[in-house]
């Protein structure tokens, strides 16, 4: 299988992008994430699966410090990006998020034109030298987002006027435009219809060439389709982490097996 060869290549490179050790997350008094260790590899799609409320989204949001925007949230433990602690005092979350982009559950285009939606990130990070350069970045991002052909004639139209699937691909293109190294996706297909889901899944597969992708999903089929590595979360614990094939065919933990066979979750 094509997929398997690439996975093997990644394993050969042994290139850890993000490494989390002993991560604990508290929401006020609630202990949401309990002692999670995980290593996320570069140029790989890693899927977080688990029943709702298991903490997979929470953990994902720790990886680019989106939880900072929530006052009562507290994170303990180490999360290293390329060997640097992202919770270090010297780290500016703004700089971190330029490297670790994010795509959300519901498509959230800004109420601006399609062009301005994509150009937003490059503009704030000063990635373009001039207008022509910016045009190029926008086109490249839209192509990577597999939406260029649909919108190239109406870049001035508002992004909110697109269909749900198009909006989500626009949001992915928007995230890609800032040239992040890691792309976090929080259930990116949960608000989409099956056809749009398929398009987004194909897109994710393509993105793997350039980015390390982490995707949270509640659909096991989706995890099996798009990911090379899978992590199973349950009640705030990371129960099992390994190659997708192995998790789905030969789970080690009986909770994982119960979830996969549909007995819990």
């Amino acid at each position, binding site marked *: 299988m094509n997929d398997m060869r690439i996975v093997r290549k990644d394993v050969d490179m042994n290139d850890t992008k993000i490494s989390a050790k002993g991560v604990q997350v508290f929401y006020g008094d609630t202990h949401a994430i309990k002692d999670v260790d995980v290593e996320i590899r570069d140029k790989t799609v890693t899927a977080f699966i688990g029943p709702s409320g298991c903490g997979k989204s929470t953990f994902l949001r720790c990886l680019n410090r989106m939880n900072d925007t929530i006052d009562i949230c507290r994170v303990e433990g180490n999360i290293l990006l390329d060997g640097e602690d992202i919770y270090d005092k010297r780290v500016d979350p703004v700089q971190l998020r330029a490297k670790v*982009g*994010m795509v959300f559950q519901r498509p*959230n285009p800004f109420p601006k034109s399609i062009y301005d939606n994509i150009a*937003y990130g490059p503009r*704030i990070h000063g990635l373009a030298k001039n207008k022509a350069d910016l045009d190029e970045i926008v086109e490249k991002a839209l192509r990577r987002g597999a939406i260029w052909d649909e919108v190239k004639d109406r870049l001035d139209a508002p992004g909110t006027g697109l269909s749900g699937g198009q909006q989500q691909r626009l949001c992915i293109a*928007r995230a890609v435009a800032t040239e992040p190294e890691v792309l976090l996706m929080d259930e990116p297909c949960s608000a989409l219809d099956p056809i749009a889901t398929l398009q987004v899944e194909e897109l994710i597969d393509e993105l793997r060439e350039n980015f390390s992708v982490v995707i949270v999903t509640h659909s096991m089929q989706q995890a099996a389709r798009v990911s090379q590595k899978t992590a199973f979360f349950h009640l705030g614990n990371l129960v099992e982490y390994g190659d997708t094939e192995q998790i789905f065919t030969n789970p080690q933990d009986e909770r994982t097996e119960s979830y996969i066979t549909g007995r819990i979750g």
Partner: protein
Amino acid sequence: MPFLWLVLIVLAIAASGYVIGRGRAMQSAGGDARHLHSLPGYYGWNVALKAAVPAFLVLVLALIVQPLIINKTVSSMIPESEIAEGSNLGLVMAEVRRTADGIDHLVNEGLMDESAARNARTDFTDITQRLKDAGQVVTSNITQPVLAAAQKYRVMNGSGKLVRSALVILVALAGLLWGLKESHKDFRARNIVERSILAMLMAGASVAVLTTLGIVLSLIFNTVEFFKLYPALDFFTLLEWSPSFSGRGGSSALGVLPLLWGTFYISIVALLVAVPIGLFAAIYLSEYAGPKVRAFAKPMLEVLAGIPTIVYGLFALLTLGPMLLSVFGDDGGLGWMQGQRAVMTAGIAMGIMLIPFVSSLSDDIINAVPQAMRDGSYGLGATQSETIKQVVLPAALPGIVGAVLLAASRAIGETMIVVMGAGAAASLSLNPFEAMTTVTAKIVSQLTGDSDFASPEALVAFALGMTLFVLTLALNVFALYIVRKYREQYD
């Protein structure tokens, strides 16, 4: 006092109706409430409502119609020659009423007997003298026709009152009997009572419509009256505002434009103070402030909104004006300002008043921008201020524009601050330190002190009121439309 008695009598009839009706219904069911269609109380209420409601309607109708009829009859008694130059029928009628009140008073005090009061042939100098002796305020020039009219007025009023009371009590009793006749166990009392209550609820809701109707009608009638006396073209195009004080000269220049200019200028100054401060305060409170700061600063700012406008007026007049004068005035200042009252004085005070208005409206509107928008921006590595400036504010812009328009409408309609802080002379100057006057301030000055509603100088206030009403209404409708559209977008 008979009026109060009348009300009490009707209420007493209704109350007894309740007791009797309830009793009759119970009796028809053999004393067992279970055989009744409705709860016993409903039968009582049915009777009480039928006794009281029509009676009160008749009373209200009589109160409105009776003076109209009497006025018409009595005013026809006054010959054309009685109406002096520059005066009108309304003024003479007011005198008739005053004279009648005076005679009433004399009779009540026992200083005059009823027959003398009614006798049309009474020597009127005698009555005038007696009125004056008794301390009744009566202008010196009571004439024979006025006195005759006053006597007629008294008589008609007296008999009118009698007829009215009789009619009301009769209607109440008829209602009572009607209700009692219905008080039978099979009667659907609850449905009837509930339908009447519903009608009353609906009447309550219709008060809002009646109020608007009252405002519009009273403005239109008097405005039309004004335009009969004063050319409408002059009102809308003249660049001068100088009413003559005598009310008879006819040399008044009543152009609305200088007043509108003053109104807009002061409103603009107010908005220049209120919008930046209010908007930034709202942004800080909704995006940055922790719960503690918010819990303290938000109510504190809202205190500014709870302070009555008279306080801001006094503040402008006695604190802000002198303060500005010491900086910008002739005396040791920059020499731009002549007196304490100026566009700046009123504008700044009004701006302070509007800060919480702008900030709480903008706060709501900024909070309505979905969190997903912000997350999307943060997820791309934007700082908070970048997110606010480039995502949140553009998204909230229509709502904020609506809020600013609402604030502008407030500023235009504000009265006390400009009455006390802005000055009395109309001017078309650009200098913000000059005294100017506004539409609202002139409405007040044209309608207070002088009770002669017939002169163009007084009636112009209604035309000004109309201008103000149309202006603020248009602004409000437009602003509410924008805000509603905006909210629908995110709902």
